[in-house]
């Protein structure tokens, strides 16, 4: 491989097939295709939901009906037919498992392929996994340990049944149903997701993690995640996604809300590897996600994402820095290959005094993909001494891909300091030359440079997650990342 060149890398990238493309054969319970009030009522009754939640769903549906799909993003795709989607699908066994042995062996196999052996995780790593298989959680571990500390970590439907007050108080407080087209859709039809509450002053001793998988054909996933960190608490939350190979486009429109009360800190890490479509750009998941967090005084929210999958990504994890001295961070690596399109970035809304935000975004485009960074830094009038630093770098791997940067910077306060910088280039020939001149093969040199390029973001991932992230990056950029 001594003559491994950038062209070879580009070729490798193009021929890289999706490795996690498999379908688990589990009977599923699906509602009829289409979207109307009856379907919503059906979903709600299937989940045995209280009256207020049904009302919330129906209100959202009413709002959604009058909304139009956003078109401003730098992406091109065949719009999904919202009436051709089945909005609910749950594995048939509704009975909760008594013990690990009761779990369907097929599902165990699925998890194994994903690299999450539950037993092993229970024993070795101290990661509690709430595994979501098509919308209903089937296995929850470490519940006892978390319970001792008063931490609630359960599926969203359980939270609705067991902690309705908390759900009612915080749901929709950061992402209102009126926020955007997909958030409204999600509010109307969401099936399940995760709920997490950390009580006052508690530092969550382990990384909380949920794996999402789209499984039954033709069912969009509408996840709802709500993380509430009460005063002075800390939580690190991990979310990872891989999806089986499929030909028709699948829609994924999740809503994630984070609430960091005074002095609290939330670290939210995502590895996203939905099916990106094949080499001809056929199929693949549409990932239209609304993620937003709100920081009260002295609170901190940190988003870290490694985006390697999806045919179309439309995702802007944001922070509303409401309280004084609050901090927002966004670290992102977005890799696009073949015909993938990504329009991703963040919004940092500075409302409080002395608020700080950092944005580090690294885009890598290969094949014929289009990779855009779109971000907003908004300093409001009362945000004295607000501080922002943004850095958006793009790496181009082939001459047919595109990398774009669309930052919006709005400042209404003279004491704010805002810095934004962006660069777009390919791997520097001088850098390659430097490495090779010192006896490093070209392949290794490319790997070294790409690695170093993403390091700032990868370093932000929690230890337990770093392995998974590196695995996915390696799959997306095989041959270059070691």
């Amino acid at each position, binding site marked *: 491989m001594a003559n491994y060149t950038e062209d070879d890398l580009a070729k490798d990238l193009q021929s890289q097939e999706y490795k996690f493309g498999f379908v688990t054969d589990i009977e599923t319970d699906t509602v009829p295709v289409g979207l109307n009030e009856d379907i919503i009522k059906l979903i709600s009754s299937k989940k045995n939901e209280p009256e207020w939640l049904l009302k919330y769903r129906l209100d959202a549906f009413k709002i959604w009906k009058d909304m139009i799909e956003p078109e*401003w993003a730098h992406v091109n795709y065949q719009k999904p037919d919202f009436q051709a989607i089945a909005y609910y699908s749950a594995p048939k066994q509704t009975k909760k498992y008594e013990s690990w042995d009761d779990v369907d062996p097929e599902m165990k196999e699925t998890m194994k392929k994903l690299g999450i052996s539950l037993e092993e995780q229970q024993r070795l790593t101290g990661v509690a996994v709430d595994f979501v298989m098509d919308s209903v959680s089937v296995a929850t571990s470490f519940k006892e340990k978390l319970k001792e500390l008063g931490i609630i970590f359960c599926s969203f439907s359980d939270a609705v049944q067991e902690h309705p007050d908390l759900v009612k108080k915080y749901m929709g407080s950061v992402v209102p149903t009126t926020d955007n087209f997909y958030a409204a859709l999600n509010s109307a039809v969401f099936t399940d997701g995760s709920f997490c509450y950390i009580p006052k002053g508690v530092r969550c001793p382990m990384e909380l993690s949920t794996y999402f998988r789209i499984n039954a054909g033709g069912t969009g996933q509408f996840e709802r995640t709500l993380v509430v960190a009460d005063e002075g608490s800390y939580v690190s939350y991990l979310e990872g996604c891989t999806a089986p190979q499929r030909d028709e486009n699948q829609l994924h429109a999740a809503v994630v809300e984070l609430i960091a009360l005074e002095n609290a800190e939330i670290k939210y890490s995502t590895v996203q590897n939905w099916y990106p479509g094949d080499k001809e750009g056929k199929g693949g998941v549409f990932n239209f996600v609304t993620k937003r967090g709100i920081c009260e005084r002295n609170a901190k929210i940190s988003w870290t994402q490694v985006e390697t999958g999806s045919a179309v990504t439309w995702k802007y994890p944001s922070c509303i820095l409401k309280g004084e001295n609050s901090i927002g961070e966004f670290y992102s690596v977005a890799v696009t290959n073949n015909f993938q399109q990504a329009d991703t970035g963040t919004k940092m809304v500075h409302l409080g005094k002395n608020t700080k935000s950092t944005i580090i975004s690294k885009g890598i485009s290969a094949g014929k993909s289009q990779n855009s960074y779109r971000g907003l830094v908004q*300093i409001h*009038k009362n945000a004295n001494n607000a501080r922002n630093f943004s850095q958006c770098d*793009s790496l*181009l*791997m*082939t*001459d*047919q*891909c*595109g*990398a*774009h*940067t*669309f*930052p*919006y*910077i*709005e*400042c*209404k*306060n*003279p*004491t*704010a*300091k*805002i*810095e*934004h*910088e*962006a*660069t*777009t*280039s*390919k791997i520097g020939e001088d850098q390659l030359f430097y490495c090779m001149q010192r006896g490093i093969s070209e392949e290794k040199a490319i790997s070294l440079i790409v690695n170093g390029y993403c390091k700032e973001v990868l370093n932000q991932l929690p230890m337990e997650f770093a392995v998974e992230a590196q695995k996915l990056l390696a799959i997306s950029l095989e041959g270059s990342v070691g």
Partner: protein
Amino acid sequence: MEETISTTASKLGVFRSGLTLTSIGFEREAINEALEYLENKEFPTTREEAWKYTRLSKLSNTSFSGNIQPLLKSIPSVHNDSFRFVFENGTLTERSSEIATSIKEVSSEKLIGIKSEPQLFEALNLAYAEDGLFIEIPNKTIVQKPIELIQVSNNNKATNLRHIIRLGDFAEAEITLVYASEEKSNGFLNVVSDIVLGKGSKLTIHKLQLENGTDFHFSRENAKQDKDSTLTINTLTLSGNLVRNDVNVKVAGQNAETNLNGAYILKNNQLVDNHTVVDHLVAHCQSNELYKGVLYDKSTAVFNGKVFVRPDAQKINAFQSNANVLMSDDANVNSKPELEIYADDVKCSHGSTTGQLDESAIFYLRARGLSEKSAKSLLVSAFISDVLNKIKNQEVLDFIQSVLNKEHDWDFEA
């Protein structure tokens, strides 16, 4: 020429009904196209991306009577020795006919191919242009003196001017554009310049905006560069009620260089909106952009710079930088530097900063006996000097300095 406006109920329709269709010899087809585009259009709102931060409601609610007041002040002059042209309230009153003519006197063959982009103010301009300059520099000609084009207004009139600037192969020229208005002026001025640069030609434009009235000013340069050419446009907004600058450069020849520099120093309720597009169509080119602004009082600045690198336009170096200093609690800045890159072997970067003057620097100067005001002025002038240093013509620099001293009361002695 007669025309009927079907949508007189719309604000743009009312606005258009006060205008007279152009008598310049543009192609009939181009004029019709522009009129067709304007049909059923309205003034843009902030919902349109290109006007996101600039409200035009004031303009759409203003009716222009067409009144013209006599000029009270002397007409500004930048150069001692120049080819001088003066437009008073849109009428050409002074000219140096050896270098250029009024566009009205140009035969229509020479105007073939001039069209408007589907953009409201450009279409308005083509359909209703009153006058303008036609400058054509022959091949291998170096214009020895600067060409000075001064537009002064004191009116309540909507004026559309269209300039054509063409440089032949290896020609060189320097053009100073001055836009001034008097305190009581509250007109509408819409200037579009079509600029074509031949092979190896060099053009420098200094655009100096110092309107003191409450005018609405729209100014647009559409430039196209052939290979080995160099285009420099320095846009200096020293005063103006509502100023919108659109600089569009299509780099269509290899090894061309594009420099766009801008500075804006605003006070009161002034608003300046700088939009630039550098479109790299071919390989091996260089573009630099530097825009710096200082905002006092309730002023607002908008910067939207866009760099396109088209597929196969390899080896492009494109740099873009925007820096702003806010001097008051009510000042506002919106910056949006954009890159759209479709080729891989490029070096493109942009940067944007917003901040305030360094307290310790002010303290340093004050400790050395400067008043707070002059300390601040000194730091502001140092901040702007990055842009001013790009201007090589001393007369232009002196003129800018004198305007700034007057407008912002800069005084480094006290």
